[in-house]
């Protein structure tokens, strides 16, 4: 095994150990409480997981998306909420690495191993159509003054640094970095979603928040490009999370079918069950192949947006169906909140919407195919 491969295996082992010890035992509790228990996030920070993708020059480990996506898949087999919390952080870090100026990165990135960074596009008027946004950034001297309302932000409330997609006063799109401690920044409503109930999703209200000029991420006019890039990165990692959720459903279904008898026959020996288990396993492997293809292309600097859209479009539907099939194998127990399967369906369902709906993914995939 070469050094790169060895480091990746070690990273996966750390994620596996952390998941087995800290997340899997409280997976159901996180869903039922609708939040992470006190102290859990501190353990994530203490274990250095926030620094997984952070470049080494900023104190991070600098793992690429190939290793990171596999690590998130492992985490999602135990708890998808925390995997999505990390996904939101990692995709935001990627935009700093790609678009951030030196002063901005030197100021903020060293803290990214301790603090969550979030990316925020959606507004009450719409999600996937950033042209309709109304958050305004006005140039005042060398600074920018930002006002507006951003909703449904992954890690909203938990994150301390926010990338905000704005319209400038000359009607161009731009992304600005805002720290939660800046005057005029406040948190709004926390969403009460039916799935991924550990991941905080919330609102940020900006009332004339003044940021220095170097807090502009990339350039004025580059806002949509950065937003698209953030979406693509998120979709690769969400593909990995969806593979993890599907694997979780598969594990529960397989274990149950090896124990439970119907008419003196173990469930897994019955053809009707075998069809379902095989279908879930095939779906799991397809999602893995899609997100890995996207991650490998990203690492190799090859086009990956279409593959990322496929990973999330196919992955989210396949994970929901897999959860449903696992529920059917478990029968009444699958429909009960005493077993995790029902919450896996709700968790996967979130990703048919987040980071662009399935319909939006399929438009992008079609456009890419038409253009070929």
């Amino acid at each position, binding site marked *: 095994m070469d050094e790169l491969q060895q480091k990746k295996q070690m990273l996966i082992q*750390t994620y596996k150990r952390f998941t087995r010890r800290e997340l899997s035992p409280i997976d159901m509790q996180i869903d039922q409480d609708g939040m992470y228990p006190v102290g859990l996030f501190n353990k994530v920070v203490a274990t250095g997981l926030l*620094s997984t993708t952070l470049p*080494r020059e900023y104190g*991070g480990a600098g793992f690429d998306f190939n290793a990171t996506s596999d690590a998130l898949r492992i985490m999602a087999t135990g708890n998808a909420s925390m995997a999505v919390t990390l996904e939101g952080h990692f995709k935001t870090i990627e935009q700093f690495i790609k678009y951030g100026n030196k002063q901005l990165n030197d100021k903020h990135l060293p803290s990214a191993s301790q603090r969550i960074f979030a990316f925020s596009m959606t507004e009450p008027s719409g999600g996937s159509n950033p042209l309709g946004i109304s958050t305004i950034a006005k140039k005042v001297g060398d600074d920018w003054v930002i006002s507006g309302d951003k909703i449904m932000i992954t890690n909203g409330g938990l994150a301390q640094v926010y990338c905000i997609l704005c319209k400038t006063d000359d009607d161009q799109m731009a992304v600005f970095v805002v720290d939660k401690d800046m005057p005029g920044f406040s948190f709004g409503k926390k969403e009460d979603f039916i799935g991924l109930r550990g991941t905080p999703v919330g609102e940020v209200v900006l009332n004339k928040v003044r940021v220095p000029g170097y807090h502009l991420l990339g350039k004025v006019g580059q806002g949509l490009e950065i937003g698209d890039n953030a979406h693509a990165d998120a979709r690769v990692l969400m593909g990995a999370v969806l593979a993890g959720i599907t694997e979780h459903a598969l594990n529960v279904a397989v274990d149950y079918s090896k124990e439970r008898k119907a008419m003196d026959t173990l469930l897994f020996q019955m053809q009707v069950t075998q069809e379902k288990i095989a279908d879930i396993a095939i779906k799991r492997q397809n999602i893995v192949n899609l997100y890995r293809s996207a991650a490998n292309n990203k690492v190799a600097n090859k086009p990956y947006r279409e593959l990322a859209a496929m990973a999330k479009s196919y992955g989210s539907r396949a994970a929901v169906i897999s959860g449903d099939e696992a529920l059917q194998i478990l029968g009444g127990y699958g429909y009960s909140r005493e077993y995790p399967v029902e919450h896996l369906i709700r968790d996967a369902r979130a990703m048919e919407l987040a980071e662009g709906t399935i319909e939006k993914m399929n438009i992008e995939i079609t456009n890419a195919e038409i253009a070929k």
Partner: protein
Amino acid sequence: MKIIVCVKQVPENDSVKIDPKTNDMVRTGAQGVMNPFDRNAIETALELKEKNGGQVILLIMGPDSFTEVLRDGLAMGADSAYLLSSKEFGGADTLATAYTLVAGIKKIGKPDVILFGRQSEDADTGQVGPIVAEDLNIPQATFATKVETISATTLEVDRDLESSIQKVEIKLPAEITVRSEINFPRYETPINIVKSFDKPLTIWNEKDLNVDPDKIGKKGSQTIVTKVYAPKKETKQVKFLSKKAGDAAKTIINELDL
């Protein structure tokens, strides 16, 4: 404080199978990981270092691929690592393994403490640590659940003997094997995983160690494994008796066929 931790690679969890024809353990396909008890030993060493200063050195015997386990230990926080690797070391029992490790320990130079996990998860003998202590003629404490520093030359060790805890003071240099209850081993953080590849890892063979060829590997082994097999799994039925004494007695009499 110079601390050497002896570690071993074992197949992950229960992925090991027994070949019914050869009675050997089939390790192909099973991912190798550090023996879980050894992680407790490394954690103990790191805590001793944090209190007393010094260095934590890892030592392992096995094929070149065992460097992976050493990297794990370095990522936990150990300072350096040594692999004793040679075809001549192959097939060693606990006696030959201990002999080889002792040669490695002597070459590394006088440690204050030598730590082991209480046993390996795959072979379960728990013998190598105590044999190393005997070969070096130093005191030993097995089954440790607590290791405290009393002075620069003395440690206090709680030994968990299942029915009682024995508190012993042990003069250094000493050898200690630890139980898994002693601590919760720290995670290898992503940053420390990357940094572990910058730490020194040395490989020695039998010539480097200047060992007696009759005492290493299969040749130096005194035990022969004649058979390894998976025990037959038996499940037994449990019956819950009625709370009423009379009914319970009737059930028992029926069951006993009296």
